[in-house]
């Protein structure tokens, strides 16, 4: 994990185009929404809901991209592309790894927000 959880250049660009105050609001939305997406991903896997699984992965990817959470985005994209019938299928370890990367991005964003 040598890449920063949040790419400082992307984050700075976001602040420049949308306004620093507004980005704080956006960070709050990210912190509010992503835990729900993670649990949607887990329950979709548990119930073999392929479309739900793909959609949850897609949402995590999309949110990660906005803030420059490149590693998180790449991991979520893998889930989205490969889906539930990947070989080997996504296991607990893979989901936990995604969770860990999300936690890292969350911590970094919280740090940036509370500056």
């Amino acid at each position, binding site marked *: 994990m040598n890449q920063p959880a949040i790419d400082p250049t992307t984050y700075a660009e976001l602040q420049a*185009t*949308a*306004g620093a105050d*507004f980005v704080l*609001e*956006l960070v709050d*939305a*990210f912190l*509010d*929404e992503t835990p729900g997406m993670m649990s949607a991903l887990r329950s979709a896997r548990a119930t073999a809901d392929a479309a739900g699984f793909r*959609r949850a992965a*897609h*949402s995590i*990817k*999309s*949110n990660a*991209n*906005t803030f420059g959470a490149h590693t998180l985005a790449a991991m979520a*994209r893998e889930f*989205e*592309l490969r889906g539930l019938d990947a070989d080997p299928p996504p296991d607990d370890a893979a989901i936990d790894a995604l969770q860990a990367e999300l936690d890292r991005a969350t911590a970094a964003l919280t740090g940036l927000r509370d500056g």
Partner: protein
Amino acid sequence: MAESGARLLVVDDNKVNRLLLARGLEMQGHRLALAENGRVALAMLRSEPFDLLILDIEMPEMDGFEVLEQLKTDRRLYDLPVIVTSSVEGLANIVRCIELGAEDYLSKPVNAVLLKARVSASLEKKRLRDQQKDLVRRFATSEVAQDLQQSGFSLGGRRITATVMFSDIRGFTTLVEQQSPEETIELLNAYYALMFDAISGQGGVVNQMIGDGLMAIFGAPLPLADHGAAAVRAALEMTEMIELLNAERVAAGKPPIAIGIGIATGEVVAGYTGTQARATYTCIGDTVNLAARLEAHTKVAQHAVLIDGPTRACLDGAVPIDALEAVQFKGKAQPVEVFALRVG
């Protein structure tokens, strides 16, 4: 800025995306509304006007593809410009959006500068389209414009059952001689404004204006369930409008005017006549001739509104009617039953 103050709808299930897109567009001076899925978005589009739709693809309940499909089949929404913003994977999905009618595709995260340029371009295109539509409407009535938009233009007619109305101002020539041309134009404009309101208010279409006369069709180019009764309602309203206009004219020291209206119902041939370059929507046939004859006959019969038997058969008895003597009109083999509306 041409696009200033446009009304945009952003549809995205993802709150971060929704907020970010809205922020960027608000900073451009647009007014924004937000929806979290396709179903909510369609309901909003059907209840209030928007200039542009910014649409996500991957959404629960109703996805972007389905929204695009629904827009295509909705007469009032099919030309609403749509910009798809998505991080959906695969070229095939992007192609599908464009094929379903999306104007543009932007991948997420959306670049703010690119978004601004695409939104401006889409709004400009919409403005030109609207301008064109307005122009067609001004010269062709909205029903004909709609018919043209839906079926395209082709010369030729089709047989339909409709009601035709002719109306003109009694003693117009004498009136013209007594007043200045400016006064005549003013009178005609007031007269046409009132008559158009009464006719289109009942679903009729004025398709010809010649001097002080006009021809209106009920039931073409778009079908109208009770065309006969609608034409009679319009005629009653027209005579009321003329009474109001006369009250104003008399108060201003001008002579009152009187109108004559003839209405006939039956088969007509309706369609575009003219040339490929210049054409007009019109109706021809016996029914049209009869309506014109009835209108001319109002002078002789001393009744403001005359209708034929088939039109009378469309009425439910709520309108008081007098049966007049049958008339042998020029060009008709048999005498025609004539009925007068009791007005005033």
